[in-house]
């Protein structure tokens, strides 16, 4: 849609020729989905990277300070990570991923991350690759373009891109297989946790929930760990009009795993746009399974969360006793 090399990217070229710049990866949002790919890519083209630490209270507070108050919690945390990396790195890596499959799109928050960061922290240098298949700019092309700016040797870049994509695929498959194996074992209570990877894998958001659930002796299955292609097909059973790729994958995850589970926990970062509609819609469609919808915001106290999860698990156990 917009194929102009930004002025920052041009200046990167000059910088790379002389020194070895450090590239910062904020441990938030898409990092949780693409981590193996990005780290492999930058290592292969010979760039040094720095990843911000797990989210903590301080990072969250920085994020809140730098954000519009109505942003969703995930974006606030993202801005906190950016602030953490700001004076430690030369460039920040924030890809612009707009459209991965025809007729689908990403949440518009992900489109705008680069521009939000550039306008919130003036003077910041952002590195990005662009993915928008609706204008025939796929992942390979976008990453190759970025790679060539950092390393002008085309074969190296091509190998890096292919290797990075293969690494992500292998990592994802391994995770799915592991989850499939754990499902085969019987558990006394099992729930599907429906949330984006940037929520489930965040130390402040999803990790607290999984900890509470595990302590209650519940086996947690992640809806995000599915094969994207088949999941997006399955998602039409719940919603035909949903067109956000990642939300579709989650819906497919529900359809894949719900036969093994006793209940579903929806976890949403307040006020998430796509999820506010789609999770409610799922509640109307999925009538035969208990559902718990948790909304996470920055004021979340652990006590309230615990009580709600405990009572939900109690209901699941009572249900099971009643059936047997």
């Amino acid at each position, binding site marked *: 849609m917009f194929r102009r090399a930004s002025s920052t990217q041009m200046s990167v070229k000059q910088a790379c020729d002389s020194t070895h710049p450090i590239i910062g990866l904020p441990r938030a949002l898409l990092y949780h989905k693409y981590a193996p790919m990005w780290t492999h890519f930058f290592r292969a083209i010979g760039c040094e990277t720095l990843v911000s630490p797990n989210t903590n209270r301080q990072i969250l507070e920085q994020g809140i300070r730098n954000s519009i108050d109505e942003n969703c919690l995930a974006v606030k945390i993202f801005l906190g990570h950016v602030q953490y990396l700001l004076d430690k790195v030369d460039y920040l890596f924030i890809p612009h991923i707009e459209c991965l499959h025809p007729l689908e799109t990403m949440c*518009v*928050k992900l489109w705008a991350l680069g521009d939000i960061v550039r306008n919130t922290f003036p003077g910041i240098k952002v590195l990005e690759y662009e993915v928008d298949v609706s204008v025939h700019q796929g992942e390979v092309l976008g990453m190759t373009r970025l790679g060539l700016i950092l390393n002008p040797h085309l074969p190296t870049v091509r190998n890096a891109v292919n290797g990075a994509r293969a690494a992500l695929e292998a990592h994802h498959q391994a995770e799915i297989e592991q989850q499939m194996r754990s499902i085969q074992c019987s558990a006394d209570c099992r729930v599907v946790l429906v949330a984006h990877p940037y929520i489930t894998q965040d130390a402040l958001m999803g990790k607290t929930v999984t900890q509470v659930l595990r302590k209650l002796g519940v086996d947690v299955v992640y809806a995000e760990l599915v094969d994207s292609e088949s999941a997006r097909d399955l998602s039409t059973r719940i919603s035909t009009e949903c067109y956000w790729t990642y939300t579709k994958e989650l819906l497919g995850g529900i359809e894949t795993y719900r036969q093994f589970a006793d209940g579903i926990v929806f976890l949403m970062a307040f006020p998430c746009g796509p999820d506010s509609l789609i999770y409610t819609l799922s509640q109307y469609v999925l009538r035969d399974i208990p559902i718990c919808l948790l909304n996470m915001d920055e004021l979340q106290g652990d006590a309230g969360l615990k009580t709600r999860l405990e009572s939900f698990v109690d209901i699941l156990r009572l249900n099971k006793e009643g059936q047997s």
Partner: protein
Amino acid sequence: MNTRRVCFPLMGSYPVAEKVLGHLIGDEVIMPPPITKRTLEIGAKYSPEAVCVPFKYMLGNFIEAIEDGANTLVQVGGGCRLACYAELQRAILRNLGYEVDFVTVGNGNGIGQIIRFIKKTYPKLSYLHICYEIYRAYEKARAIDEIEDFVRKNIGFETNLGSFERLHRHFLIDLDRAQTIRTIREVNRDYSTNFRLLDVQKPEKPLRVGFVGEFFVVLEPFSNFFIEKQLALYGVEMHRPLTVTSTVRNITFHDRYLRQQLALADPYLHHPLGAEGTENIAHAVQYAKQGFDGLIHVKPFGCMPEINAMPVLHRVAEDFHFPILYFSFDSLTSETGIKTRLEAFYDMLMMRKSDHE
């Protein structure tokens, strides 16, 4: 077969244009009663809490129209969350026990898609007829937009209080009656002369304020507590780039338009922000460059594209010393708070202006 009683969600003065499309796909058109507090209360009661407020208004509209006998609901599609409104609203209404048909028009871009969709749903209609009716609706919307643009810029300076509003009411009635494209254009022409004949006392350099934001909240005055009119009545020339006509134009020439807007928003934007976000930045930058006195930005609570736009607007405001007032509307927004902020904003603009002179 049962008679199809079609209903549309309300938005500004546009029911006049929507009715044309309603007659195309139904036997009878039942417009929902005008939006009141009750509409929003019903809508909010059955909506998810974090959904944006247009969803709540539209759901309220639908329920009130069903109470009046509507059985075919038309929901528009589009970008952002709007594309999924219909599916959830259908589920909610079915859960409430209402048996209604739902027609979703225009998911995906472009007018061509809308025409094909109507043809597929109602194969008896000829393509020519569909195109003609859509064009007729467009002409009505264009008449509304042109007249209202003049009203916004001049109502604050009328000498006879209420003269603009009275004429505007007559205009809508006449436009509703106009059937052919020729008569619609005649109404448009007649009333633009009539409006120009009204007495106004406009200073040489009036306060000029731009009005941008999310589509529904900008276009439906009830949902923004009539701030556009209120501010205009203080004696301000209001400029609003966003209309139905402009939106139809944009979705028809989507790619070219987006490139244009991104160029206008340079250097603040590298990529589109989604929905109206990109063009709002472009307009804000243009208004700031043209020396406007201020800008009002409205959005529903939690609106994703407009929240994306806000940090960029902050930067624009800082760079140009350009006052921007932000409003966020939800089902619980109080009117007093808005009035106070609007008055303070107006006072501030006046003081700035007298300082400059």
